[in-house]
């Protein structure tokens, strides 16, 4: 992933977001990190709707998606993204406390790239995020074309 790529983190819990952001940065990720507070904001951003921030064309995006969010949940967001022919190119990493196997399978079925369970043990958590960071440094992400 090149340095201009944007990492989107859809996470309603501020604390979680901070932790993830700090860990990523400590892991050496220097891309722009953008927070999307809930599902609605995420969809508005990606589908260029509403009042909030919107995505720009010809940029690389990666989405870290939490499932438990108010208004619109993570699974629904995932579904909507993967239904759009352009947006489905965005790699989606599910990062959530839910470890229910049924949900995991469902998300994979919808087309998420990776599903990670947030470990509560801090060591494990930071470890996992660090690994995500390393992963991000090597992964190639397509550019998403123009705003419609």
């Amino acid at each position, binding site marked *: 992933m090149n340095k201009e790529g944007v990492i989107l983190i859809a996470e309603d819990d501020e604390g979680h977001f901070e932790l993830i952001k700090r860990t990523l940065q400590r892991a050496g990720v220097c891309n722009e990190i953008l927070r999307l507070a809930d599902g609605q904001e995420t969809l508005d951003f990606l589908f260029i709707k509403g009042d909030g921030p919107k995505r720009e064309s010809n940029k690389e995006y990666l989405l870290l998606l939490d499932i*438990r969010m108010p208004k619109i949940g993570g699974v629904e967001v995932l579904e909507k993204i993967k239904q759009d022919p352009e947006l489905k190119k965005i790699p989606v990493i599910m990062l959530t406390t839910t470890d229910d196997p049924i949900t995991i399978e469902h998300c994979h079925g919808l087309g998420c790239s990776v599903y990670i369970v947030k470990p*509560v043990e801090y060591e494990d958590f930071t470890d996992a995020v660090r690994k995500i960071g390393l992963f991000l440094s090597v992964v190639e992400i397509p550019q998403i074309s123009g705003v419609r």
Partner: protein
Amino acid sequence: MHPHPAVILDIVTFLACLSALIILYKSSRCATQRGAQLLFTGLLVFTLLCYSFCLIIEWSGVTLRLDTLENLTGALVPMCWAFVFYAFHKSISEQSLRESEARFYELFDEAPIGYHELDTKGRITRVNQTELKMLGYTDEEMLGRPVWEFVIEEETSRQAVLDKLSGAIPPGQSFERTIRQKNGNTLAVLIEDRFLHDDAGNIIGIRSTIQNISKRKQTEETLAKEHNLLRTLIDNMPDNIFVKDTESRFVLCNIAIARSMGAATPDELLGKTDFDFYPKELAERYYADSQKVMQSGESLVGQEEPAIDAAGNRKWYSTTKVPLRYENGKIVGLVGISRDITERKQAEYDREQLMETLASKNKEFESILYVTSHDLRAPLVNIQGFSHELSLSCEQVRSAIADKKMAKNIDKKVGNALNKDIPEALGFITNSASRMESLLSGLLRLSRLGTAALRIEPLDMKTILADVTRSMEYQIKQAGATVRIESLPSCLGDASQINQVFTNILNNALKYLDDTRPGMIHIYAKKAKIGQNVYCVEDNGVGIAPEHQDKIFEIFYRLEPDKKSGEGLGLTIVKHILERHNGRIWVESEPGVGSKFFVSLPSI
């Protein structure tokens, strides 16, 4: 004169007559009845004899002239023929008359019913054998006596007879009387009268037929009793009982069905059909069922159907319809019994409702459990995460202080906080968060147990336990214990869950071994009642005190929280799994000796 050849014929005639005469003579010696016939025939034959004798004389050429005799006998012959035929004719007539009279008497006397004739004063003028036998009298005892002397209802009979004879009342239908036999017993009879008229049309007597109807009366009585019994029986039954004909019209009903259809008496329903009482769709349904039963000849048993009673309430009945057959096998209708099962249906419905409510409450509870345990984890992430951040910050401060040469006293104050208090506090926070996490994790697992689908199949317990021991090989070695497994019967259950059960039990056994002796774990089967297998895991560990033995199955309960690890969920999970399998777990234990954990599972 020469003899005429015809003389031979005359001789023949003569001889024939002679032989006839001889026959007749012989017959007269033995026979008794034929006086006249014999006489006239004899006369004829004798006359013919003489005549033929004369002819012989005439034609033989003898000069003797017997003309007069010849003429006389010749004339007599046809007369004799006439007499003979007349005599026979008469006797035949007499015979016929006698025969017909005899037949008449036979008819009269031997008739299958009693006959008697009365004169104008009601006295018996003639009575047949049958009637005499019926009453036990001789004809002398009955002839001449007024007929009512033999009847129990003497006065009624006398009046009726005299009225009939006087022409006041015509002979009408047959009527019943009780007559007195000679031996004193009474007999029920049916009498029918006819008038006897003379040529002028006046009534000169009565001829009556008497029929013994005592048997019939007895049969009638028995029949009435049986009918009464049957009627009482069906009227006392609480179920609706009915009989219908091939057109589905009611032929027989009991009180119960009359009441349920709003009729005052069962008779009101007779001849009517369901269409007269029920709304069209219901009536059509009943009609279709009835027709099917009668046409196919197959019974309809225990069919549950809706109905509406007289008050308009909705009811449920369990109906059985059976085809009604005559002796020749032909189906002439059907018999039906209907039981009111409204209450049962209501109970069933209520139960269903209850089950549904229960199921939904259960689901609700489980989802609460899930959501709660899940939602509580999120803050935990923060607690732990930022605890770590804090400690990192502390580190930073510490290293910053170490770099800069700060004043000794500040270092001491800050040092205490930095090196002792803050890490200590953070330690507690982190530990508590971990503890919460494991508790919640356990709760989540427990709630998921209730929802996970069970795959019940026959399980080879040997294989299951082999798997369990293999996966715990390391712990077993670490604890220095030996595990002995006997042959175990197969059971029905979900493989992974049963695996979990024995893993948990074995885990506990290893955890609570006695340090003073090498651990011995023995797994075997015990005899149990039909349908259940009991497996036992016996150890020689520290044992469990009686007051703890029930509690160990409670959620989060730990026997030695300080010394041993674990969340206290193992046995709770085991209990839950077994309950879902219709099994049980219980323990027998003695502190210092060891424990026995019994698991019961359904057998194959």
